[in-house]
């Protein structure tokens, strides 16, 4: 495999990792706020805080890793996306900043402020919506280069059904992934009241997820036929994705094996995400950036891959330690530590 293919595969894996951990985090923020509004916060907020407190910073690093890596492996992305994304990118940064810092303020500083809780819940939905714009842009047609200047065509973007369907998909997926995770976490904590509540959320958000996915897929077909056809050639991956969704639903309904249910949801998104990514090949930004032409110099590419492997050797054991202490230590989860 050439270094640029390794590079994009690694980056896509990291984006997938961010999709999962950030969804859990974003969705939890929304549920925490929703529970407060519906006066059920005493049931689940302790559970949410116990999981999120130790890991929120790690979530953010996944994202930083992705955008630093993309610019590193494919410097042209800085030129096109950087120039076009100034406004949506800045708004995304501000939302992320509000969320990250307010989380710390709320959790370690002043407890139970309504304003913080609201911001924490609202940003949980707005951030995925604004980040998903980058995926829409990559389909081409919105970023144009004329006379050496790169601009973003806002009117087209805001009137495109594709962009709205992707936003919708992002938001409901966040809620679905998060609810399934919390179901699993509540069952580990043997917290029956919380379990009942979040299992309800998970079941509720499953149907909109599959509908939004289909809608986005149909609009993708209208906007970028090449990408749509490529994905159709990967029908087996899409099939596996739907299959894992079914398994997750069955387990949730049956009220058993919640860990397995969450893993199925992860696999559901893994296959869909990779079918989408592979179908995108060879473009990073249709039609300006392709993986082959925009890759960095070979010596840099190889250095990055080496550092990446060395970094993983360092990080994977540390991450396992983190998970052992906070995710799989039954006493901690139950609040005894």
């Amino acid at each position, binding site marked *: 495999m050439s270094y640029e293919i390794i590079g994009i595969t690694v980056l896509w894996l990291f984006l997938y990792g961010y999709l999962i951990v950030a969804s859990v985090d974003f969705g939890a923020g929304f549920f925490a706020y929703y529970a407060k509004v519906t006066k059920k916060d005493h049931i689940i907020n302790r559970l949410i805080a116990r999981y999120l407190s130790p890991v929120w*910073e790690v979530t953010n690093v996944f994202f930083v890793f992705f955008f630093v890596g993309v*610019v590193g492996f494919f410097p042209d992305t800085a030129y*096109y996306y950087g120039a076009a994304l100034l406004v949506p990118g800045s708004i995304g940064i501000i939302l992320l900043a509000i969320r*990250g810092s307010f989380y710390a303020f709320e959790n370690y500083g002043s407890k139970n402020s309504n304003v913080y809780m609201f911001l924490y819940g609202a940003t949980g939905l707005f951030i995925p919506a604004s980040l998903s714009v980058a995926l829409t842009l990559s389909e081409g047609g919105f970023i144009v280069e004329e006379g050496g200047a790169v601009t973003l065509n806002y009117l087209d973007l805001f009137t495109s059904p594709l962009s709205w369907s992707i936003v919708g998909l992002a938001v409901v997926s966040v809620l679905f992934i998060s609810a399934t995770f919390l179901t699993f976490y509540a069952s580990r904590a043997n917290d029956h009241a919380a379990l009942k509540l979040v299992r309800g959320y998970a079941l509720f958000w499953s149907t909109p997820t599959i509908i939004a996915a289909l809608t986005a897929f149909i609009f993708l077909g209208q906007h970028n036929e090449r990408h749509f056809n490529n994905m159709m050639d990967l029908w087996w991956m899409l099939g596996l994705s739907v299959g894992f969704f079914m398994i997750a639903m069955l387990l949730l309904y049956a009220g058993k094996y919640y860990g397995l249910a969450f893993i199925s949801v992860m696999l559901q998104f893994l296959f869909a995400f990779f079918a989408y990514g592979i179908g995108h090949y060879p473009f990073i930004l249709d039609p300006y950036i392709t993986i082959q032409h925009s890759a960095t110099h070979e010596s840099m590419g190889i250095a990055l891959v080496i*550092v990446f492997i060395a970094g993983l050797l360092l*990080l994977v054991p540390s991450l396992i330690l983190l998970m052992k202490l906070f995710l799989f230590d039954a006493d901690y989860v139950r609040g005894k530590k």
Partner: protein
Amino acid sequence: MDLDPVLMSRLLTSLTLGFHIIFATLGVGMPLMISVAEFLGIKKKDTHYLMLARRWARGFVITVAIGVVTGTAIGLQLSLLWPNFMQVAGNVIALPLFMEVFAFFFEAIFLGIYLYTWDRFKKPFTHWLLTLPVVIGAGMSAVFITTVNGFMNTPEGFLLDNGHFAAVNPIAAMLNPATPTKVFHVLTTAYVTVAAILAAITAFMILKKKTSDYHKKALQLTMTLVLIFGILSVLAGDVSAKFLAEHQPEKLAAAEWHFETEAGADLIVFGWLNDAHEAIGEIRIPKFLSFLAHGDFNAEVIGLEEFPEDVRPPLWVHYMFDLMVMIGFTLVGISMLYLIFSRVKKWNEHHKGILSLIVLSGPLAMLAIEFGWIYAEEGRQPWILRGYMTVEEAATNSPYVGIMFILFLALYIVLGTLCVVILRKLFRNTPVEAELEKQYPTLEKGDTK
């Protein structure tokens, strides 16, 4: 808004970096202070030091959060505001930026574990071990980002092949001539600054209330660290100047208003320039510039006249440089004064005057960080990549930068204010005495635990 995108991009970058650097400096220095305090606590079996580590760590969580979000902002803004720079330089500096993220990742994981495992290990020593990866991770992220900044000042590790970078050697780019002195200076100044800020807070508490053993020990510890790292910072500043004299002489000459190349050059402190570009009202220290630049009072120092007008840095960086250096000596002076007073039995080191000076030293140190960076970045003008690309060529041409500037300004005002408010609330609601009693109840009964 019809403002020049280049100017607005510069302003927005300065704003974000100027804000981030405060929290970044705390992020580099705090882990070391926490680690030292916890180590002393375990070693001496002294609960006061353990409580110091706990309380510092609790405050640190808040500042880390702002460090992380502003760092994420600057990381993205580099691509959003300087797309041309990142497209070209990304080929050469991607490696340290990538490694920086790994360092953060490593630090973040262990910081998370550290904060939530205070009483989960049988041996307290095991918990202390967790500080090491945090200290190393924070230090390494400073090292990596500083190599990037070094590269912008003295670019190396590539060949230029009609406008494109070819034959890239990422390791050589990281180990550019600016890296060793910059890394040394950035690390030592981060440590001295954080020690000074913690000392200032402690001195403030002693001034306000009565003195307690807890506060006295904290002051003694932090002031010792200020002295050690203060001396190291000045030393590192001196080698930085020697590096400039050799590799970036126009930056040093601008800071010193040194226009003509000459041997035995005088050091000019403060003053102002008249129309004929002569310094007036200055303090002149004979031959000291030659010493600062080359370690020899009679060495020749290159003047600004040897550089074309359009690549000379602005001359106001002189004040930035002088203020930074002055603060450096002040910090060393204050910490020496305190330590001498605490050694001599008859003298009282908790005298109002000394404590007030210590309170002042915290903000001064942080100001020196800001002045130092403004000097380093302004002194590189007009280049973004010295000798290859100017700031003007690198900027975005988007017309919306002005609005974004206002948005970010508002964001930083909110974050900065809330940070102070929350930190005050956090510590006021749980005074040390109450917490000591709660965490280590045996202490009251006179047991040594």
